[in-house]
């Protein structure tokens, strides 16, 4: 077996994103040099103040938006467009209302041309994994918010992506369902053995789920700090009341508070000149 240096599963190198706001003729910087590494099998969360570019960054990683500068590498190779190696779980489940649970889960597989029989097998496995067996023929309007998000998750997992990108998937759920889903996610993650990049507003959620938490600065976004979470797995929800847990929470909150209150938004507004 050859020894090779451990390449990160996912790497963001100096990612920068500008965009042009036609109405005010200004050039705004959304991301200002983001550097982040996620190793295989890791669960990394991103937290940060509102508007700092967490979701934008995730879109760049997925290839839905093209970065102005810098690169995204998966397994050491540059990626610029969406691909089967990355799958996104959006905050809005966005299940196609005219398809059943089963139809929604196999949707991605259809898009990349996987055969019907194989798709059916894979879908059944993941529908079962997320705890929805028996609901295959239901329509989205018949499902609760939590159930819809499970379908959303199954839809992403069935693609067998190298990296799972999750954009505040539990934000629209009520508090109790949210906690249950966090536990469920960890269970599913351990079984599916995926690498996960998870964006969230909730610090406790980030700490509970992750191996490391990346704290974003305010706009323009960059990684302010990365906090390793040294809590053994498997983790129970009761951990959230532990003193050590609170200590980490305080630490992260202090970092974010700095961004929110002290420095405010370091926004760069350039006047776009004619030669631009």
């Amino acid at each position: 077996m050859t020894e090779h240096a451990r390449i990160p599963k996912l790497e963001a190198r100096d990612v920068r994103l500008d965009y042009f706001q036609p109405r005010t003729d200004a050039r705004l910087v959304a991301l200002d040099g983001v550097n982040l590494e996620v190793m295989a099998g890791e669960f990394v969360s991103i937290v940060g103040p509102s508007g700092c570019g967490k979701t934008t960054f995730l879109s760049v990683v997925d290839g839905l938006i093209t970065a102005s500068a810098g690169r995204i590498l998966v397994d050491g190779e540059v990626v610029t467009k969406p691909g089967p190696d990355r799958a996104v779980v959006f905050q809005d489940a966005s299940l196609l209302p005219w398809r059943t649970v089963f139809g929604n889960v196999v949707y991605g597989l259809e898009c990349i041309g996987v055969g019907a029989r194989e798709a059916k097998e894979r879908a059944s496995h993941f529908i079962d994994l997320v705890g929805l067996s028996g609901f295959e023929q239901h329509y989205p309007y018949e499902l609760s918010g939590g159930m819809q998000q499970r379908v959303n998750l199954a839809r992403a997992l069935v693609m067998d992506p190298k990296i799972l990108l999750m954009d505040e998937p539990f934000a629209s759920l009520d508090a109790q369902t949210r906690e249950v889903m966090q536990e469920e996610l960890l269970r599913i993650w351990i079984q599916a053995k995926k690498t996960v990049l998870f964006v969230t507003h909730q610090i406790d959620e980030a700490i509970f789920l992750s191996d490391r938490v990346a704290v974003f600065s305010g706009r323009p976004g960059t990684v302010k700090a990365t906090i390793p979470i040294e809590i053994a797995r498997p983790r129970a929800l009761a951990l959230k009341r532990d003193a050590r847990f609170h200590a980490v929470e305080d630490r992260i909150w202090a970092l974010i508070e700095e961004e929110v209150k002290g420095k405010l938004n370091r926004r760069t507004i350039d006047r776009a000149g004619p030669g631009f």
Partner: protein
Amino acid sequence: MVTVADPATSTIPRRSLLARLCRDHEQLVIGGGTLVAFLLAWEAFGESGLVDPLFISSPTRVAQAGFALLHDRDFWNDLGVSGREFILGYGAAVALAVPLGLAIGLSRRLQYMLSPFVDTLNAVPRVTLLPLIILWLGIGIWSKVVVVFLGAVIPIMINTQSGVKTSEARFIRVARSFSASRFKIFSSIVLPGTVPFIFTGLKYGAGRALLGVVVGELYAATAGIGHMIAEAGNTFQTDVVFFGVLIFMATGLVVVALLDRLEQRFEKWRPNAR
């Protein structure tokens, strides 16, 4: 509000079965009731001699006239002619308007090119074009087919186009994140989402198509139910006129009901907000 009544000490009188039925199906009872009352009043006025039955007829006379017509070969011919005008014109409109509406919705350029014509056609009352259409196509079946076609094609196209444009961005985002091809996006996201809009257009277009039959036949025709109404009107056969109007009314209701049924089969996925 729920009040629990104790049978032993209750002083609330027990409602009769009829009263309970009335309360549960209030809508049906009141609606049906007013309809029946209207028919009775009509009958009373018509037969009592207060007003000349020549003017307002009465339900029984209309029914009698209808019955007589059902045995008249000419009536069935008229029905067939009107029916053919409707089906040909409406069918052609659907066949053209749905694909065209989809195309216009997808291509901004095509929309820019065609919108002056669509908007103008939408603003022209077909009735004003009748003299021209008759000039070109005569008073036979084809002039009416064109009038029907023109009436139905615009609303169907506009609604279909509208459906394409309102394809929800979040669903398209999902498709793109799975690297779906443009055709896949069209067939799996745009098309299913447009179906409700298409049906709205179909229903509205059916009404306009029916209107086209009437307007065309009233203006110039040798056969058809509208023609029958016009002739009966000229000869003061009010009961026949009413019967003819009734036929159009019934057709309108039936077509819309059929479309509703069809729509339900396509839209099982919708929560029943109807």
